[in-house]
Structure formats: C-alpha cells, structure tokens
C-alpha cells in the first residue's frame, strides 16, 4: 500500500490498529499528509453543515402518492353504486378514470402549509381537477333531477397519519369528492366554523369549497360548487 492509499484507508477508518499507529507516526513527520488529513476533515465537516431536515409533510406526500398509484394499478371490481342511486359505469371507463385521476393528483403544485392540515390538503389535492358546474345543479330551478353516481374506484390514502377513503361522485354537471375518515378532519386556518367547536366547518381552497362534518365517522366534501349550495349537496350525498 503506497502513501496515498494509506492516507485514504486512514481517513476511511480502514487501517488496522498497527497500521493506523504507523500512519499516525507518519503524520508527525509528513506535513503534506497532515495537511491532507486536516483539510479532508474540514471538508467533511463543511459538507455536514449543508444537511437540511426534510420538509415536514414530505413523508405524507410520498405515502399519499404511492397509495394513489397503488390504487390506480390495482385490479379492482367496478365501483358499487349506492342503493337507490344512479347507474354503473363500464369497467374500462372506471379504470381509465382511476388512472387519469391518479396522474392528475400526482402533478406537483399543491403544497402543504402549516395552516393547511395534511389530511385536508390531501383531499383538496385529489379534488383539484374537478371542473366547476357548467349549468344549474340538479336541485336548482330549471335543472333535470338526477341522483349522485359514483364514478371512480374508491382510493385509500394516509395523510397526516390519518387513513382516508376517497370516493368521487357525479352530481348533475359537476363532481364531488367525499373523503371519509375515522378521525376528525382538522380545520384549516381561515375556515368558517359552523358549529363553534370545529365539528362542522367550511373553507375555500382555490376553486374548491370544502365542507366538513366531523363525528364518529368524519366526512369532508371537496367540490367546486358555490358555498351556499354545499349543505344541499351534502344532503344529496346522504352524509351521516
């Protein structure tokens, strides 16, 4: 082993005790190696200074993305339609929609903030591609009465440590994502607290409106309908 190899082995802690002792003695005599050791350690210390903690929520974001991808890839049976409601979509259509939704959800753009709890953020991100209604809603004057129909396979995700099942419903000319969890959905900053204790709240997020009913089972609706129509829409979806 030449001097350079010994130096690298010494710095990597790969020298045996006898060789390490010999190299220690060499360092007392050789200014070049001593400088190299000091500068190597200085460089290592400097590099360690640039470590930054991973952003909070990154783990949740990854878990969410993987779970959505897993859901899109799984061979699920056609979504069941709630009793007494609408029609069923063909298997192929459901699969395509599922993949499309998954791809759109995974697009970067919606970022977490301290004011936006991860679970709420995940639901909003999932629903962000829903287009606003083009015409009157089914219960409004002049609209054709239709019942809600489930259009995508359910998706299970974990966000903020909270297991959430996401279902997408078509209602008239728009859609709504209904997120169900065994834990309450925390109220984001700026939300309107309808109950005084965070049990029912609503909040705008971009073009979406969120409407939440917390309870033994909590539901969070995300849809681009006007705020005034949220409660009616929730009733149409037979929450609680």
């Amino acid at each position, binding site marked *: 082993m030449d001097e350079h190899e010994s*130096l*690298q082995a010494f*710095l*990597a802690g790969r020298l045996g005790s006898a060789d390490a002792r010999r190299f220690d003695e060499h360092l007392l005599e050789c200014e070049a190696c001593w*400088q*190299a050791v*000091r*500068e*190597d*350690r*200085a*460089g*290592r*210390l*400097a*590099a*360690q*200074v*640039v*470590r*930054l*903690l*991973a*952003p909070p929520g*990154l*783990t949740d*974001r*990854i*878990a969410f*993305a*993987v*779970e959505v*991808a*897993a*859901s899109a*890839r*799984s*061979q699920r049976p056609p979504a069941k339609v709630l009793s007494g409601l609408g029609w069923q979509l063909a298997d192929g259509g459901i699969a395509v929609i599922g993949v499309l939704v998954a791809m759109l959800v*995974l697009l*970067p753009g919606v*970022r977490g903030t301290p004011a936006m709890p991860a679970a709420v953020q995940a639901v909003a991100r999932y629903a962000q591609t829903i287009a606003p209604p083009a015409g009157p809603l089914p219960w409004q004057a002049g609209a054709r009465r239709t019942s809600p129909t489930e259009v995508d396979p359910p998706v*299970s995700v974990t966000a903020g440590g909270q297991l959430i099942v996401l279902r997408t419903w078509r209602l008239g000319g728009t859609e709504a994502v209904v997120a169900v969890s065994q834990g309450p959905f925390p109220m984001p900053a700026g939300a309107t607290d309808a109950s005084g204790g965070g049990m029912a709240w609503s909040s705008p997020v971009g073009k979406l409106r969120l409407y939440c009913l917390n309870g033994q089972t909590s539901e969070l609706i995300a849809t681009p309908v006007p705020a005034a129509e949220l409660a009616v829409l929730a009733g149409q979806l037979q929450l609680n």
Partner: protein
Amino acid sequence: MGVVGMSDHREFLDATLPYVDAVWQVARHAARDGLEPEDLVQETYLQAYAAFGSFQGGNPRAWLAAICLNVARSEARRRRRRPLELSGVAITDVAAGAGTRDSGPDVAELVMDSLDSQHISQCLAKLAEPRRMCIVMVDVARLTAGEAAEALGCPRGTVLARLHRGRLRLAELLAESRVSHGRA
C-alpha cells in the same frame, strides 16, 4: 418486473420510508434546471414502487439513491439541458484553483471559520459532479462508502478517492472565498 398493487404498497412504504431523509439529501443536490427536490423525491419513490417487484432485497437506501440520481438525469435530459456534468463556471474554478496550496494560508482553519451553509452549498455546487455526489452521498446523506458505491455504480475505492479529493477541493474553495472576502 413484477407488478405491485394495493396489497404491496404497505410493504414498500415500510421498507423505504425510513430512508426518505437520505433521498431528500441526495435530491437537494441532484435536482437541476428548476426541478424541485420534493418532486424529485416523490418521483423517485413512485419509480421505486413500480420496480419494487424486482427489488431483490439489497440495500434500500443505496437502491433509492441510485433511482434518485437516474430520475434526476432523465429529467435533465428530458428538459433538453446538459445532464449532470461540470458547468463552465466549475471548470474555470477548478483550473484556477489548481496549484495554489503550497504558499497559501492554513486551509483547514479558514474553512472552520467559514461554516455558513449557503456559502458551503455554493462551493459544493462548484465541485466536479463525481466528487460532489460522493460527498453528498456520504457526508450529507450519510450513506456508507459501500452504499454510495452501489448507488453510483462504481467501486468502493473510487468513492473513497473521490470523497477525499472532493473534500480537499471543497476546503480549498471555502478557504479561497474566505480569503477573498475576509481580506477585502
């Protein structure tokens, strides 16, 4: 490649999420051309998940780091920019810095006096890509030299050599900038 689905994603997350910090450290220094490190980490995990069926149970940290580098390179190619190579600035600086060690001030002391993370990041970015990635893998992301060798696809001895030369060059760059700023 095996196809994974809902039943496997928990196993995948259990096996890989403990290493998200290491992937994050690599992604921060591998993301280029406006690619956000968070997006690179997410894409790394999605590609790793897609390939999890063929993962033979080796070292997950090294495996994820290798995927992260590949995704970063693919993304750079996709954006029709130069892949992870020396920039013109870095080449100039490396050439200018050669042979300046003999009569200069004490490099190690100057480095210790200038431990500012933003400044260090700037100097780190000037290193040649192979050396920089060895430093990022071992000193920043805390992979072992063996894991870094696996991720980078080179022998462990090469990693150690690049690591050593990279640290020396980083120390030199920090010392040079310290002299030019400190004596102004």
